């Protein structure tokens, strides 16, 4: 049979080609690892020096803490029993915590054990990179300036964005992974599902990544704190900008991802007073697991509205940009800031981005922080540091995914952990919540504003943003161009409900 004859060389040929392919993809890494190893060595040397004396300070500090510990509450630190008011309208009812509850769980050793459940598989698996970025930052902190001399450890589990798996993960971690606190659990259903568990177990659940507004509710859920600029605020920023530039009754066409995430944009557009002035002429919901949005976009294009709102994320950011570049319709595009990872979502469609930017129609986003990989900040010391951390501790760059977001979120966490460890009584769950609900800090990655919390008076973390448009500069690089000033809602959010 002819096939028989063919087979021989086909197999040979393919084997070779496959080999070639394999090398092709792995080559870069090999190099990466090599250089990276070298740099590690160097850094290690450098870090060792300052690392040491830091450690020294911390040790002193820690001894102090320990003494305080032994005397327990007498030391005047926050009580570790009964009901403790830790911030405005925010009370921890420790009496209702489990009998075996220990405020020092997960920090009594030489580690600070942080738990995390996030999608590493399934349709939203690309979020997994955030966790990895966080871990890289933890390693960096452990090397350079450990918190109270302890090692930050991240225990991350895959939940495939399934609430069911997340619940099991979290319960198991609380039971047997000696978790001190949870951080940056991703997704609204997931966080809703685990909040009762962490709350009942009196385990802090910090900076969860969900844009639903109801994470700022310390009166009822003092153990749970939100993180990102919530999508309601974001949408309201868009709406005010729309009304400012296009007047009342401006027409809006909306592309909405059909899940908790997209639906928040949809609901805000339709029901928020701030958006009362805009006229939503068409809403197209698309399947998060779907392959593309061409059909939905075609319908939206036909509306010829003043504004296109893209309440979607990941590959669909790229798709929306690409579709818009292909048609004559040039509305103002407002895109979710979850699309703001230029290298992940715009590099693949840079030509389309250039087309739009040439027509001054690049998508606008309400960004809260500088984007690693944005040419504009190439020389920004903070961004350079982030790139260095990613390279040294993960041999990745900002271009490889959402790792830099992980670093930023890691910084938030380390910030509050540090201030908790400096409080009287040292690092324990009560102090951590107190430190968090009274946080007053800032971060060089932010475009502006502050990171303040004040119990029920100000229960939202990231509250400032600046509208920026994606453009391709003369050098042909992707970058954000500021549109209008930095809007700071600090403190105005109050608390949920």
């Amino acid at each position, binding site marked *: 049979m002819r096939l028989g004859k063919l087979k021989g060389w086909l197999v040979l040929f393919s084997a070779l080609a496959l080999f070639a392919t394999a090398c092709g*993809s792995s080559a870069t890494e090999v190099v990466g690892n090599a250089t990276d190893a070298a740099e590690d060595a160097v850094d290690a040397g450098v870090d060792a020096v300052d690392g040491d004396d830091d450690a020294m300070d911390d040790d002193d500090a820690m001894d102090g803490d320990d003494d305080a510990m032994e005397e327990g509450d007498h030391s005047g630190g926050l009580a570790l029993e009964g009901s403790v008011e830790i911030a405005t309208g925010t009370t921890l009812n420790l009496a209702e915590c489990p009998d075996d509850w220990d405020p020092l769980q997960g920090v009594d050793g030489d580690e600070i054990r942080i738990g995390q459940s996030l999608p590493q598989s399934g349709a939203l698996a690309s979020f997994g990179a955030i966790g990895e970025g966080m871990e890289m930052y933890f390693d960096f902190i452990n090397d350079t300036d450990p918190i109270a001399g302890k090692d930050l450890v991240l225990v991350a589990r895959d939940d495939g964005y399934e609430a069911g798996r997340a619940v099991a993960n979290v319960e198991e971690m609380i039971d047997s992974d000696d978790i001190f606190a949870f951080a940056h659990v991703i997704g609204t259903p997931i966080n809703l599902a685990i909040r009762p568990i962490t709350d009942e177990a009196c385990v802090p659940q910090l900076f969860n990544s969900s844009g639903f507004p109801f994470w700022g509710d310390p009166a009822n859920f003092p153990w749970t704190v939100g993180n990102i600029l919530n999508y309601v605020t974001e949408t309201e920023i868009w709406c005010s900008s729309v009304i400012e530039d296009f007047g009342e009754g401006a027409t809006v066409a909306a592309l909405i991802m059909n899940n908790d995430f997209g639906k928040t944009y949809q609901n805000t557009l339709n029901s928020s007073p701030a958006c009362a002035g805009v006229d939503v002429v068409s809403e197209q919901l*698309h399947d998060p697991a*779907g392959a593309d949005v061409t*059909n939905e976009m*075609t319908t939206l294009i036909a509306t010829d509205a003043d504004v296109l709102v893209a309440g979607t994320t990941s*590959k669909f950011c790229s798709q929306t940009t690409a579709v818009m570049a292909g048609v004559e319709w040039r509305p103002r595009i407002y895109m979710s800031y979850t699309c703001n990872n230029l290298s992940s979502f715009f590099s693949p469609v840079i*030509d389309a981005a250039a087309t739009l930017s040439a027509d001054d129609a690049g998508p606008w986003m309400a960004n809260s922080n500088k984007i690693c990989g944005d040419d504009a900040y190439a020389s920004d010391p903070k961004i350079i540091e982030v790139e260095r951390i990613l390279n040294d501790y993960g041999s990745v760059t900002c271009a*490889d995914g959402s790792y830099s977001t992980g670093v930023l979120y890691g910084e938030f966490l380390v910030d509050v952990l540090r201030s908790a460890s400096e409080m009287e009584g040292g690092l324990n769950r009560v102090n951590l919540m107190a430190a968090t609900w009274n946080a007053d800090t800032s971060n060089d990655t932010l475009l502006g504003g502050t990171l303040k919390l004040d119990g029920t008076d100000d229960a939202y973390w990231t509250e400032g943003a600046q509208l920026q448009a994606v453009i391709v500069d003369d050098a042909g690089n992707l970058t954000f161009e500021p549109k209008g000033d930095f809007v700071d809602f600090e403190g105005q959010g109050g608390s949920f409900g």
Partner: protein
Amino acid sequence: MELLINRVFDGLSNGATYALLAMALVMIFKATTLINFAQGEFAMFGGFIVMVLVLEQGLPVWIGVIVGMILSAVLAAVIERTLIRPFDPADHLPLVIITLGLFLAINAIAGIVWRFDPRAFPEMFPSGNVFTYGNASLSWYTVGTMVTIAVVAGGLTLLLNKTKIGLAFRAVSSNLESSELVGIRVGPTLQFGWAIAAAVGTLGVAVFVASPVRQLEPQVMVTGLIFAVSAAALGGLDSLGGAIAGGLAIGLVQSIVVPYLGVPSELSLFAAVAVLMLVLLFKPAGLFGTAAVERV
């Protein structure tokens, strides 16, 4: 009017991909009366091979596509030989399970090797439009996809009707025992079917993500497969022509029927399944199918 034209073009270009994947499914079904649930993942994986060849190894795009097709064909042939042939072709359940296993495994491997961020894919057709009429425009891409399925369909028909291996393939799909009695080696013939199917599938995904609008990522075919099997079943699982008709039909249902009936856009998958169910209720072997698929 412009809207309608655009919708038709959307439907055609989406439908073309479903049609290509559906043809792949049909090739395997004709030979084995089996649905390869991993077909979509085979194709996705082939797509990544093409991407590596073109973007990382620097091959010209069409060369890359063809090499990629050959590679995935060989991979499929190997898989057929090692994982499929050991089983009795008449007993479908183990085979269905094997393909489900492949579905899970291949998707995971792609995720591990290439991660989940969308990847740019080289354009296979000239960019820009053949003509533009207001917001309605016929892109070279759409034309390209239509030409591609025409070529593939023509090629497969020639292959099946004018070559010896094609004759053997048709004989095996018609009657296994008689085929052996005329000296046809059944194993390699079915293997040939799997190889061709994989190649066609790879081309399908390549064409799909070569759209300026889409990118390549491991999940690209997870729902794509549902549309493709709907298309294949709609046309009748054993008819190549049917697969094309089915694919275009599903594509058009999505892009035209759904919006004009005021069905919420998020239900387009539902619409596809509903159409499939209706058709099968009245024509249990699909529109152009001959086989009565009895057992699984």
